[in-house]
């Protein structure tokens, strides 16, 4: 079968003729409004999962009054099956620093923080050195912006932006009520841009290569490319930067082991796509979006076990503050166990599906709201495996 899957090299590209600092120098000569226009024009959407247009996020924060604002890089990378941010941090950290500095210039922030997943502390030694050099370079250039690291607490929910702020403020990592949104009241209740690691690198690269080249990639809803973490039943697991908007079957052709039964797109909180839907599933905001995780399952896998693992994960990782999520996750987990053991009839699965409807609209944050994604997509497509 013909394969149009397009591999791209933007994120990890190392161009000796134009270092991240040089991109920074040339970008800071432009006006903040021009930079925002380019970002909006590029169509870049956040790569952390929610897919909010990055240019707009920066613009909203820029429009807030007040002299204290923050730029935060979300490097908590907790979604099971995602490991692309680690690679970016390790290989091209200066591109992240440059993106944060540009953002600081655009929105009027003087401090940037990288909230680093606790498990990635082993990267710190190398990163600290590079950050020191970068901060010194900023100092030399009289750029009033400094970047610091903060170590994460190790909870998945701390990747959720408002829980991340709470955690940074030394409190328990519990998501906040919204509104207010981070652009208005984020870290220390000040206007804050929070972006994913990868998003920030793309902002640097868009400033480097211009919006046109970026826009030329992808589809109208999903511009550009994205870094994927490919794992599971694949002969070639790893990190790949691919053009967005690909049909899933092309992806499976490239990465599957010939016996692919399903792909979990977007990690534990994403959707499970069965083989029969590979052909008409687009990977992108118009189809199934992903923060980067692509987990491939072949026919040897029990989808009951897969779902059970995910539900155990959410049951443990829920921060526990809101009822729909704390109790809902436990009910889903215990519920499929009860059905499996025959203690509840198969129709109980439909009661649980209704429950995910409530979790989706009534839970306080994205964690509880998205548990229904894997639950419903696995129950709907692999109902027999769950019951028998």
């Amino acid at each position: 079968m013909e394969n149009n899957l397009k591999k791209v090299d933007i994120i990890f590209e190392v161009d000796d003729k134009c270092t991240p600092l040089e991109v920074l120098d040339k970008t800071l000569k432009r006006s903040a409004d021009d930079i925002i226009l380019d970002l909006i024009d590029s169509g870049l959407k956040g790569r952390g999962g929610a897919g909010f247009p990055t240019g707009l996020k920066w613009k909203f924060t820029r429009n807030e009054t007040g002299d204290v604002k923050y730029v935060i890089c979300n490097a908590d990378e907790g979604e099971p099956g995602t490991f692309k941010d680690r690679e970016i941090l390790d290989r091209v950290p200066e591109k992240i620093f440059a993106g944060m500095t540009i953002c600081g210039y655009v929105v009027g922030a003087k401090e940037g923080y990288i909230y680093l997943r606790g498990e990635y502390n082993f990267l710190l030694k190398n990163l600290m050195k590079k950050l020191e050099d970068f901060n010194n370079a900023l100092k030399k250039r009289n750029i009033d912006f400094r970047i610091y690291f903060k170590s994460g607490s190790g909870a998945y929910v701390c990747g959720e932006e408002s829980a991340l702020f709470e955690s940074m403020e030394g409190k328990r990592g519990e998501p906040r009520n919204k509104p207010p949104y981070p652009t208005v009241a984020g870290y220390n209740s000040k206007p804050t841009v929070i972006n994913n690691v990868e998003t920030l690198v793309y902002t640097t690269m868009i400033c480097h290569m211009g919006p046109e080249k970026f826009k030329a990639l992808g589809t109208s809803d999903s511009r550009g490319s994205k870094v994927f973490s490919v794992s599971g039943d694949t002969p070639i697991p790893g990190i790949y930067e691919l053009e967005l908007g690909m049909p899933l079957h092309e992806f499976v052709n490239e990465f599957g082991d010939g016996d692919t039964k399903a792909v979990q797109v977007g990690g534990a909180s994403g959707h499970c796509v069965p083989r029969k839907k590979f052909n008409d599933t687009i990977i992108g905001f118009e189809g199934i979006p992903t923060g980067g995780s692509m987990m491939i399952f072949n026919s040897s896998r029990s989808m009951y076990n897969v779902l059970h693992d995910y539900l155990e994960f959410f049951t443990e990782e829920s921060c526990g503050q809101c009822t729909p999520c704390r109790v809902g996750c436990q009910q889903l987990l215990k519920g499929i166990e009860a059905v499996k053991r025959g203690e509840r009839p198969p129709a109980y699965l439909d009661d649980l599906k209704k429950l995910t409807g409530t979790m989706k609209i009534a839970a306080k944050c994205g964690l509880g709201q998205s548990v229904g994604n894997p639950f419903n997509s696995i129950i709907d497509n692999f109902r027999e495996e769950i019951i028998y």
Partner: protein
Amino acid sequence: MSKYLVNLKINNMPIAVEEGTTILEAAKKLNFRIPTLCNHPDLTVAGNCRVCVVEVKGARLLAAACATPVSEGMEVFTNSEKVRVSRKHIVELLLSEHNADCTKCFKNGHCELQDLASEYRIGDHVFLDLVKPESLIQDISSPSIVKDDSKCIRCQRCVRTCAELQGVSALAVVNKGDHQKISTFLNKPMHEVVCTNCGQCINRCPTGALTERNYIEEVWNAIYDPSKFVVVQTAPATRIALGEDLGIPVGERVTGKMVASLKKLGFNKVLDTDFTADLTIMEEGTELLTRLKRALVDKDEKVVLPMMTSCSPGWIKFQEHMYSDMLDNLSTCKSPQQMFGAVAKTYYADKINIKAQDMVVVSIMPCVAKKFECERPEMRDSGYQDVDYVLTTRELAMMIKQAGIDFNKLSDEHYDSILGESSGAAVIFGASGGVMEAALRTAYEIVTGREVPFTNLNIQPVRGMEGIKDATIKIKNVKPEWSFLEGVDLHVAIAHGLANARQLMEKVRKGEAAYHFIEVMGCPGGCLGGGGQPIPTSPEIRKKRSEAIYQEDEDMPIRKSHENPEIVEIYKEFLGEPLSHKSHDLLHTHYKPRKRY
């Protein structure tokens, strides 16, 4: 800054409200009730229970009404299909995690979760039972508070109460996910942590997860025991709140009915803590004047100022934990409850010819810390435990109901004598600033021979609900023996709620506050907002109770402690004079430092 008006519609009815108003508040204005659990008028917004979810037209998610501010053009539906389905799910989920044995629960009939369950007619259990066996073991280590995790719905009201209102943080959220719970430091028993036993968390817990340790059966047993002579004392703040639990509107005084009901319950004598409140003023006022004299005349460097009141056992335990370097600032006076117990089992027992060992002293208190206080080893100066049982205002209401007394129809009755007479100065002990006002009424008169220079004896500057109040009283034209106080500006401060107390203590410790006398009450509003008072509580409710207290004061024929004839008599016949040897033995105490966690 004036606020914009925001126009919105709730259930198709238009309304304009100030910017920043929540959907919950706006709906209330239109008389749409939205159920709530984690929300409380005294606390910051949590938005975690989610029972208040409503539908906002065009929004992907339901909004938590308590946590969502209105916005222009918003269209809200409080009872749409989506809302009903979700809300019912949420109540079902809460119940699935809940040990709902209502018939055995102390909160049966007074429980917000039970109300909600009954409102939504949650019948058959849809979901699986998730109650954890380990949660079924109650923490009964504290003489004041019972903590039952199997009844907890994780609304975190207690955590916010303890942190925001009390500045104690004895309770905190620990763990995440299915293991998340409300815990103490290292999950230690309540009796071994910084908990002050103030009971404010109990007042705000919507369920039976935090309740007072109740002694109703013990008290009935004492009443039924023919070999026991059971006397009961009632604290100032009970008489203005008891009615709330018995179908009487907030703010209505029920002093006479309360006395009548206590007599009907079978107590041998119905006496008044207000009597010993007056006694406290005599002792504490004299102690203050003595300290001032030692400081100003004798230049005694060991004398500690500011002197701080000691009638609130929650505050005392707080101080023992948090500011143990400042224990000498505390007045050595026992609380009125404990003075009463000590006097009852000595002076009074002799007078009425009852042996102290046959006497049972029961207190009706707005407080749960007093349950702890009466068991303190320091509180046995009569040779016996001075006060045997402490019941909250709520527990008394339960006893009255159990006895089948139609409280509303009772005719007023009077306290027995002696130990039943009191002044208006005593009743205001129940409000923040009241002890200060009572002390000033007496001390000023002792020193100058004249009444305090305030209209109708009402010292307005020390009244009101502000967290920390201060005032200065100029002392002029003193009697010759008090000449050292001539022209002195007496600086006083008042705090209520331990978070405010903490602020004030920090100022004192840093030397930023040159006060002579400080009144602290552990609970918001003072005892009228005590941890043993009828539930619910809110700023409005406390305001009404406070008005009732000051009205009770104005209606009393005697307004000053030193004019209480029974006080005059007890000094003449028994104690001699304030701070006498006998006073010291019976009415004064000492404190002990405790750990900070």
